[in-house]
């Protein structure tokens, strides 16, 4: 479990560094991939534990440190996306890359729309068509990048001996709350 926490902590730092640097060096406009959210979806779909939920919360809190003015907003939205990914993987028999991409796409839409509504109320959605174009673009870019991030995480986990690539973590035999 410690190795998993360290892996995600490192991955989150790298993702945050990329997310803050990419828009400055490339003309991405609003289409900045949400790499931390992809990591949260990976957590929700493959790691069914309370520590994973806590990690998702901390990842959101880390985004709050580098974005916007309200502490707790991204912590809330990333935890929510984690929970949705967890529920999705609990209901489905198969959680492959396509399901992951769909979860990332929907997750980005929910996170961005939720953030705007919480931040500015429904008046934030006044320019609906332009806003939706930007959000759909960002969700699509994030979904397209998701397989790369999933593969990188699976490879890293395999290297650290955490779990077999692409398979869901099974905690049904454990008895500790945090595992």
């Amino acid at each position: 479990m410690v190795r998993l926490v360290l892996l995600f902590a490192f991955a989150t730092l790298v993702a945050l560094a990329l997310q803050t640097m990419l828009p400055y060096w490339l003309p991405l406009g609003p289409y900045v991939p949400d790499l931390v959210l992809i990591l949260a979806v990976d957590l929700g779909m493959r790691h069914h534990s309370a520590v994973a939920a806590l990690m998702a919360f901390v990842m959101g809190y880390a985004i709050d440190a580098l974005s916007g003015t309200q502490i707790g907003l991204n912590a809330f939205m990333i935890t929510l996306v984690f929970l949705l990914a967890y529920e999705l993987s609990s209901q489905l028999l198969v959680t492959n890359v396509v399901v992951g991409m769909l979860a990332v796409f929907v997750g980005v839409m929910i996170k961005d729309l939720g953030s705007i509504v919480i931040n500015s109320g429904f008046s934030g959605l006044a320019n609906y068509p332009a806003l939706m174009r930007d959000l759909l673009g960002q969700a699509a870019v994030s979904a397209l990048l998701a397989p790369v991030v999933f593969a990188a995480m699976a490879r890293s986990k395999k290297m650290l001996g955490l779990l077999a690539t692409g398979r869901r973590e099974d905690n049904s035999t454990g008895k500790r709350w945090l595992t």
Partner: protein
Amino acid sequence: MNSSFLWRNRVVLTSGLLLLLSAHMLTTGVRPRDPAARPGEALMGVLSPVQSASAHLVEAAHDFWHDYLALVEVQRENQRLHAELSRFQNERARLAELETENRHLSELLDLREALGMRAVAANVIGSDATGLSRTFILSAGTRNGLNAGMAVLSNQGVVGKLIATSGSSSRVLLIDDHNAALDAFDQRSRVRGIVAGVVDDGLTMKYVGRSSDVRVGDAVVTSGLDGTFPRGLLIGEVSRVERQGPGLFVNVSVAPAVDFRRLEQVLVVTDPPPRIIAQDQD
């Protein structure tokens, strides 16, 4: 039975508790300046060397790419000319970069002298982590005398204000963020209003009465009444005035004077602006 229920639903229950905690942080209004935000400042401190290193790396890669293109163009030239040309191009690119940086810094120096206040120059080393908010990360922090609440300017006009600082970096909330607002007036007609950011880019000037004399092309400048920005700094110019529809106020759109995507160096005013007492507007 109960422990089995708790065990089976441990992820949902933990997530629910964490959602409640983050909702509590949201509703109680934990701001970047509060003690609860200290771990975030530490994170900024951890990331700023990475961001600075990345900035240098990307700059080196950019130079390398330009060198490569130049080499392709002079492929048919002989080896001596090839090497010489490459060397001169490198030198020229470096000098051009130095000249641009020098020009920016000179303009910032002129601005600082014109302001007559103490100020610190800083480089922009990063952008907002999500793209939904409009913030920048600067290469200077508390070690350079910066603190949250200080005004950030460029030679083009008002950029924003500092909302969080760590030892070696700080974060600026740009004036076109939907959470930003500053007191301003129309320079020609002296009509006052509050300039605020809107979600889909740009600025709006709020609370301008229907009978006010505001026209497209008017310069909008800071009033100095908000205690952050010195008086008379350019914010932008009026790009649209809509008087149709009901309501007490007109919709005034303002085009920012600063091109936020091209910002490289900024000036942070470390002196508090002089206090100005508001006079009633007729």
